[in-house]
């Protein structure tokens, strides 16, 4: 119940295409869902985050879609660029005495030039 399932494991997209990464969770206590971007040899960096009271959040080319009833959320990268090639992690967080958070297993995205 504490897992966050992320798919696909890897993704290849043509330049200009849309990259879609999906995550699903079971624990309804989760109430904050960030996405992290990690380039090879670097630490993760926060990309965008959403709370379950909204169904969509957009920042530039990055959009999170959130489906509370299905307990799923996804990251859409519009007009994907080679510079977007990285590993993307979804995560989920809730509070239970302390803040708890679980990461997804990561998606390695490659955008072809």
């Amino acid at each position, binding site marked *: 119940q504490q897992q966050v399932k992320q798919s696909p494991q890897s993704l290849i997209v043509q330049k200009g295409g849309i990259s879609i990464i999906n995550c699903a969770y079971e624990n309804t206590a989760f109430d904050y869902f*960030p996405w992290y971007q990690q380039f090879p*040899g*670097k630490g993760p*960096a926060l990309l965008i985050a959403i709370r379950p009271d909204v169904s969509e959040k957009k920042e530039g080319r990055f959009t999170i879609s959130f489906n509370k009833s299905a307990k799923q959320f996804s990251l859409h990268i519009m007009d994907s660029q080679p510079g977007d090639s990285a590993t993307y992690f979804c995560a989920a967080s809730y509070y239970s005495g302390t803040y708890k958070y679980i*990461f997804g297993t990561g998606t390695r995205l490659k955008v072809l030039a």
Partner: protein
Amino acid sequence: DTAVSQTPKYLVTQMGNDKSIKCEQNLGHDTMYWYKQDSKKFLKIMFSYNNKELIINETVPNRFSPKSPDKAHLNLHINSLELGDSAVYFCASSQGGTGLRETQYFGPGTRLLVL
């Protein structure tokens, strides 16, 4: 200026040894974290310190002991290293203590290889 720095960048050592990884942040943040990323890229929180006080201590072997001499530093000491400890260890910091609910700034990672 590096916001979150870690030393060493690479660490190769034998099983059974004791080693330390140091982390420093110059962002004035109150909270620091240690994460472990295994060979499959799975990322997991290990510890979190807020103003030198331990606030998160996930299920981690007792061989791992964090130490925070001040709020700008969080070191990780590992005793009796095992093969399974081979991973990349990331230090991170954030302004408050709400974990992923706020922007965390990650260090470049320390690549530990236990032979």
